[in-house]
């Protein structure tokens, strides 16, 4: 599929009035260069529109630029070409309105669970105003009784829940998740997937999830974006809009899963050839 058709597919997919988009990525390119000027194209002319309240997953093999794309949306990185708009405004840096959850929970080890969750409120100087939220978000993350423990004392699943609560306490308009469940065992992972859905519905936030787990993407998303590497671009947009609660063994789930696998297989065969050269 050529770049033009991908871009067209992306823009056809969305309604024409800009304010209904939460996140718009417009013809973005990002090349990483070392000190000697050798470059690797992480993203090549990528466009994507995400509606308000939509749950979108970005999947693809490593090196396809999915994390780079997420970091551009977060404002942790900036593109050489194109721009990213969030609710119509160009992204120029990070903002508490775009919460980001990392693969490693990334809790500050010198702060207690409670201090970690309250970090955003304190950093923005609104702690006095929203003080009561802290207990509520601790409760929501199922961490009651662990307020005064330090991150090294809790399990990976608990740490990731704390990390989610830490991002959500800022009431972000968009929640950007960079393989947040990738480092967890499968039971904890399924448990947290439920938690994620519950929170997404509660906060009606836009969620963009980077994952390498096809089942996870199919189970959680409204839409699945398949990316391919070298250079990183979007190869497929799949609607996964079927009713919730979903069942992992339903015919619809399996069919969708197979469709994603099929797309992957096509994309994969192409990159195999590249490796062979």
């Amino acid at each position, binding site marked *: 599929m050529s770049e033009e058709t991908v871009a067209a597919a992306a823009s056809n997919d969305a309604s024409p009035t800009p304010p209904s988009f939460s996140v718009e990525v417009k013809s973005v390119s990002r090349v990483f260069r070392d000190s000697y000027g050798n470059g690797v194209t992480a993203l090549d002319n990528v466009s994507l529109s995400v509606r308000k309240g939509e749950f979108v997953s970005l999947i693809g093999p490593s090196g396809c630029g999915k994390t780079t794309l997420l970091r551009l949306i*977060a*404002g*942790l990185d900036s593109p050489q070409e194109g721009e990213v708009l969030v609710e119509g405004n160009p992204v120029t*840096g*990070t*903002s*508490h309105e*775009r*919460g*980001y959850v*990392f693969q*490693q929970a*990334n809790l*500050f*080890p*010198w*702060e*207690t669970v409670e201090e970690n969750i309250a*970090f*955003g409120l*304190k*950093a*923005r100087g609104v702690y006095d105003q929203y003080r009561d939220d802290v207990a509520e978000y601790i409760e929501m993350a199922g961490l009651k009784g662990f307020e005064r423990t*330090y*991150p*090294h*004392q809790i399990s990976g699943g608990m740490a990731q829940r704390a990390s989610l609560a*830490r*991002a959500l306490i*800022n009431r972000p308009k968009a929640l950007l998740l960079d393989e947040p469940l990738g480092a967890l065992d499968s039971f904890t992972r399924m448990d947290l997937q439920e938690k994620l859905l519950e929170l997404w519905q509660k906060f009606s936030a836009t969620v963009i999830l980077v994952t390498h787990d096809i089942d996870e993407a199919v189970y959680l998303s409204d839409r699945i974006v398949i990316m391919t590497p070298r250079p990183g671009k979007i190869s497929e947009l799949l609607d996964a809009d079927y009713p919730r609660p979903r069942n992992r063994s339903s015919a619809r789930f399996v069919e969708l899963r197979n469709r994603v696998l099929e797309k992957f297989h096509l994309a994969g065969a192409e990159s195999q050839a590249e490796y062979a050269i």
Partner: protein
Amino acid sequence: MNGKVDRMGTTEKYWKPRSRTWQLLAVFSYVAALVLNVLIRPAIEVDEVPFRVLLAALAAYAGGRYLLSFFSEKIAVEYNHGSQFRFAVGMLLAVWDVLSSKTGVLPLPFFPGPAQIMEVMFLEWRVHLVNTLYSLRLFAAGFVAGSLCGVASGVMIGWSDRWNYWLFPIMKVVGVIPAIALVPIVLIIMPDTFSTAVALVAISAWFPVAFTTARGIRAINRSYFEAARTLGAGRGYMLRKIAIPGSVPSIFTGISTATGIAFSTLVVSEMIGARGGLGYYINIAMGWMNYASVYAAIVIMAISFTLVLTVINAIRNRLLIWQRGLVK
């Protein structure tokens, strides 16, 4: 039950096998040293009472711990583990006493016996106390000033790329100069010998602290800063809440190194021009060939410096409570 004799694969702190014999021998060794001291007449003129009091106190302490070990398992385990060492200490004191004051085998005045050292400590305790306090005051002033400057400059160099570019290479070269080599320069700048000594101690503490602080801030995982940014933290907030707390382990690595260097700078600078302090006292005592006093000062130094290290470690453990149990 076999005791663990190396550190491979064992995490037990107390690994010596239970032995009632060693537990009793530990108490016995101090009693034996005391009895020996009382029975044998000294070959030189010396007041042996302070040494006897020391041995009696050590024996009483060991005996007390032994008795308490019947009531507390914790004390029993600790006491049992240390009993062979206690025994060795008692025997060493006895042998030293016999070889020096009792028989004169060790040449005087260079190698006095424990009884002579204890005698000097008892007779001159006021002088020793004053000099110890003098040294500790000098150390505290210099070390606190040096460490604070070290943390401040380390934070600047670690935090700002610009400061790092200009100052890090300079610090690397200036920092390795032993503070003592700067005596001629510091003497000109400082108004008196006390402030010269304070400045020298401060300089020797500054470098290790600044260096490890700067390195510590640079070594903090970037993702903590990224997480803070996405949560709405500004630069100043990240400096206070990420960079500084994140570099506390490194700061204390520097402080530990700095303590040792600062101790030697302290003693040397006291020896070359102060009007008080343990280094000054050693110099004077050496001038009078009073070696018992020299050893007394060395013993006091060992005790007071150990106390200083204990205090620093306690502060460190308090501040790094979040690290306890973390993978080392």
